[in-house]
């Protein structure tokens, strides 16, 4: 299939100035509307002619989607806030350094200047079989080309696969799940709040979507409660090129201590499945235990239970074990607070 990278198919472009106008447009055009925030992923889809929306709603002019403000002891981050703004914001850095660190590790400075937190958490998977435009499960077809005997699947899922083995490539998503964030979703029928942990969905639930966002809905803001403000955080991202790449795996953890022992913790791994996976078994196992090698080893072993390698991604299993181990013990990444 010839891929034409220089000309996009025609579409009707809307640039609403307010959230209500944007939502009205999304409600009007439903599934035929494409929501564009920073545009970093959108233009690839459109230029490759894999996605052919008849309407594009560009959110760049919606000022109500931008900015970070204190709210209920925590923060409310507009979905249109750029990753650079997020990484540099003093409120974020002082209280929720985990999110600042994750945002700072996304792609390159230029991309972070343009890319938004809403776009980063809602981005589609990077599976190239899917992005090539073939009718795989995720594209509405009946096969996963990445989960076949001859597939090139080095970056694909080791956990939670259900027909499709694509993974979620976001760096900020696991940090938000670890911080127990809430996603504020606006539609014509009103506002709904979804826990970050439930915002992301796997292929078993809906094989064609990565999030619960339905046509007509807009991710308006992200609220971070004060629960984990000032806790100790750990974020580590492993990628092929350290200057600019999607994660092979990343891990985000937020922990509180009582003396030497772990009093409370949330550990989340991403790029291991189609959604960020909160490691409940690990959390339950390490609470009340000291932060030491023994606890970390236990956590690492628990983390990889049920992991299933494809042809080329077997390395992800020991990598995940070691990332979780380091997230508990501390390692090449650093615990920050």
């Amino acid at each position: 299939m010839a891929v034409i990278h220089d000309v996009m198919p025609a579409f009707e472009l809307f640039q609403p100035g307010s959230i209500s106008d944007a939502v009205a447009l999304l409600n009007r055009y439903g599934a035929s509307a494409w929501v564009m925030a920073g545009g970093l992923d959108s233009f690839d889809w459109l230029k490759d002619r894999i996605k052919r929306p008849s309407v594009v709603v560009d959110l760049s002019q919606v000022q109500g989607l931008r900015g970070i403000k204190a709210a209920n002891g925590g923060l409310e981050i507009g979905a249109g806030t750029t990753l650079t703004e997020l990484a540099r914001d003093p409120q974020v850095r002082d209280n929720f350094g985990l999110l600042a660190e994750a945002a700072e590790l996304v792609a390159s400075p230029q991309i972070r200047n343009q890319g938004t937190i809403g776009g980063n958490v809602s981005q589609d998977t990077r599976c190239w079989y899917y992005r090539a435009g073939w009718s795989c499960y995720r594209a509405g077809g009946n096969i996963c080309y990445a989960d076949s005997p001859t597939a090139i699947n080095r970056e694909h899922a080791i956990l939670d696969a259900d027909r499709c083995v694509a993974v979620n490539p976001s760096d900020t998503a696991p940090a938000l799940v670890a911080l127990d964030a809430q996603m504020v979703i606006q539609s014509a029928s009103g506002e709904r709040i979804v826990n970050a942990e439930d915002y992301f969905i796997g292929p078993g639930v809906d094989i064609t979507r990565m999030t619960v966002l339905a046509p007509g809905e807009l991710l308006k803001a992200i609220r971070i409660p004060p629960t984990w403000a000032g806790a100790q955080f750990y974020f580590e991202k492993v990628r092929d090129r350290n200057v600019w790449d999607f994660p092979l795996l990343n891990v985000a953890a937020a922990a509180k201590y009582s003396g030497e022992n772990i009093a409370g913790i949330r550990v989340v791994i991403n790029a291991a499945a189609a959604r960020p996976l909160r490691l409940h078994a690990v959390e339950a196992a390490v609470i009340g235990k000291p932060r030491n090698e023994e606890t970390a080893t236990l956590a690492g072993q628990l983390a990889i239970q049920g992991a299933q390698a494809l042809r080329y991604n077997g390395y992800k299993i020991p990598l995940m074990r070691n990332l979780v181990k380091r997230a508990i013990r501390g390692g090449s990444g650093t615990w920050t607070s």
Partner: protein
Amino acid sequence: MDFVKWGLNPWGQNVLTHVSWTMFWASLFAGVMFFVAHAGYMLLSAHRGRPAGETDRLEASHSSLPTRIERHSLMARLFHWVMAAAMFVLLFTAFLPVAGVKFAWVTWHWAAGLVLTASIIFHILHASFWLDFWSIWVGPKDIPELKAEILRELGQQVPGPKSGKYPLGNRLYHSAIVLAGLAAVVTGVLMMSRVRTPLFTRNPYMFGDVTWGVTYVTHGFAGVGLVGLVIAHVYFAVRPEKWWITKSMILGWITRRQYLEHHEPDRWSVPANPPTSRT
């Protein structure tokens, strides 16, 4: 309206991928419309049972028959309800996500599919060797009954044959459900080779894209067909004048009077009570 969905394979070929989900809504609509239309018609329909006087005479002449006549053995009833449960799980897991209720449905779906497959295999063996195999099928021999039933529907008193063990509508329904059910089961078992199960190693390339496309589309058409068929079946099961049949699928028996009122003793022979010995 699309009937099927097409996709692009890596060789740039257009291949069938699925039945269009508009077919699900069409089948749902057809099923609901059928029971609305039939329920409306039945308000005006003539009574189809044997006249009371004739039934009285038959009961007098068949007094040697047991008062309770077995219609469905325990095994047959168990099969029916296991199959019904599996069918409901299959339909709900297949179509609730289409209707917008999202949940992890695949494992439930194939597990219920295996239960259905096992129950169908059991039923085929049971019906072949322990039941009257031909009593459920339709053929040219049923044409007189069909004519009589049509005339009765038109309000005429017809002396023609009543049904054997199974009413004609029941047998026609069975034929349709066999066709749709077997198509769904055979294609579904093949499709299991594309998902991860603990039963066998995945083999997504067992067939080529075209064969897989036909398999998925056949499964889809069988599935949406079953939606309409199951709606019709449940509708008839709860209709007041059919309740005696439904009850027999629970209890296993019908009364002697129901037997004589709705069936042709010559076509469904029931052994009489053994004569009591005289001292």
